[in-house]
């Protein structure tokens, strides 16, 4: 996709947004992406997709960072790179100063729950401990503790097919937390569950995360969810996937102790992010909404 088309207000590095912070690579941070390029060639097609173009990002310890953007802007790809599941074409990815390798140091909550269907809840959570040095009894004990922690104690012996979407999501969360990882990677974990359950799960996640503050990278395409959960919001754009700007949220925690949605900062951020995403989607020739007036959508929740 060529970038010869001038797009208003897309270049976040020159336009001052509310509370911007540097997006570039800061050495010494827990997670550092430096000029990362990643493209994919899908099977059966000679054309390759540029999933990430020149992405640089630093995340300090203990930060909760939301990756926000419409689909196709490389959010999942960043998580997979940080987990060491895939390698960048060029540029570097460092986690704790080293090239990342999959393992118990990072917990991954996938977009589709990815539970093992022939294993019960306890077994699914214990599976995350497969590559640890814990003994069998310790694994079971630990798994049981995290199953209880997400409120599924009574369902420890149930199979995934017997659980609701929200419960499956809890299992996936328990599995990611069970290794007590330094890094928590979450890919739209609440996108496929209903609104009420989602709100409860967001509170639940905050509770669990504050108990043991790891670095959290949370992918979402919901503006509200990003503001609700994150210290920093990384706003991304599609075709090619890239970082537009990084915004400090600057809202006090815990955010459930006051009416967040009435807070002037919340309103300011929400309007700003909506504006940006609306421009993005409307000016992206690959989007369904290309060239349409989406003025009505800014008050109604979702970007795609």
């Amino acid at each position, binding site marked *: 996709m060529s970038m010869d088309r001038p797009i208003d207000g897309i270049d976040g590095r020159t336009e001052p947004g509310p509370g911007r912070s540097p997006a570039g690579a800061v050495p010494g941070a827990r997670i550092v992406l430096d000029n990362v390029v990643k493209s994919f060639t899908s099977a059966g097609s000679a054309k390759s997709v540029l999933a990430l173009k020149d992405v640089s990002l630093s995340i300090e310890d203990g930060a909760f960072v939301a990756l926000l953007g419409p689909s196709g802007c490389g959010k999942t790809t960043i998580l997979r790179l940080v*987990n060491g*599941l895939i390698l960048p074409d060029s540029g570097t990815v460092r986690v704790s100063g080293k090239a990342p*390798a*999959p*393992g*118990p140091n*990072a917990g*991954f909550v*996938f977009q*589709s729950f*990815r539970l*093992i*269907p*022939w*294993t*019960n809840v306890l077994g699914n959570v214990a*599976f*995350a401990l*497969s*590559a640890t040095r814990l003994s069998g009894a310790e694994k079971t004990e630990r798994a049981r503790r995290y199953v209880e922690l997400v409120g599924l104690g009574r369902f420890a012996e149930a*199979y*995934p*097919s*017997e659980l609701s979407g929200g419960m499956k999501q809890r299992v996936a969360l328990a599995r990611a937390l069970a290794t007590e990882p330094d890094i928590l990677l979450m890919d739209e974990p609440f996108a496929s569950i209903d609104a009420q359950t989602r709100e409860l799960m967001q509170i639940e996640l905050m509770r669990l995360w504050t108990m043991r503050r790891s670095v959290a990278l949370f992918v979402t395409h919901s503006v509200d969810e990003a503001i609700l959960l994150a210290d920093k919001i990384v706003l991304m754009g599609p075709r090619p996937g890239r970082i537009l700007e990084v915004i400090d949220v600057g809202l006090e925690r815990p955010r459930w102790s006051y009416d967040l949605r009435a807070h002037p900062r919340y309103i300011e951020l929400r309007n700003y992010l909506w504006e940006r995403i609306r421009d993005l989607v409307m000016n992206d020739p690959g989007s369904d909404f290309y060239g349409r007036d989406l003025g009505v959508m800014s008050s109604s929740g979702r970007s795609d």
Partner: protein
Amino acid sequence: MIALYRLAFLGLLIFLWWVASINVGRNLVPSPLATFQAAQVMIGEGRLATALWDSLSIYLSGYAMAIVVAIPIGVAMGAFRVLGKTVELYLYGLAATPRVAFIPLVIVLLGLGFEAKVFIVFLGAIMPILINTYAGVLDADEELIEMARSVGLRRTRIFVQIVLPSAVPFVIVGLRLGATIGLINTVVAELYTAVRGLGGLLAIYGNTFRMAEYFVVVLTLAAIGIVVTEALRYLETRLGRWRKAA
């Protein structure tokens, strides 16, 4: 409840059989009663037991051999993609060739006895088991595999803990198909080689128009088929407890 329906259906079948036996003529379709009496005589003389034992030993030996050979090859083909891609074409070709075509060759190589018969059963049962095992290994969920990688598991353990278990339902389908074809080939082998066992009885009674005895043999074969497929179905539900009860 379903057991009751099945019994009622059996009653209906026997009734239809009885109607047929009256209308078609006793020489072609024996009455249920005549068949029952013939069965009593055959069981009393021990003729049925001998034939059953003959056939079962051939059937089960050939089937067991097919399982032992097919599953490892299918797994290996799925595990090593190059091997699978290289061999699969020939395998599908072989699977499409009627196995009866090999019988003269088998007789030349192994004679007319037990070994030849077992080998004919083996030839019939091996293909569906092998092909389904291979398909099952290839069908493993890429997303689950990535999840296992993310947890830090290496290739071998992912294969054992994710890929193989997800192939089990396919393998069982293969086992079921293999069991059916194996039974068919048992009878075929007994007809084409030394005439013995249940297939042998079929030939004898068929050629002499002793239809009541002939029916007893047919029903015995059907019973074997039911027992084997039900056993496999039991295995399937035991292994598939994690599926939501329908």
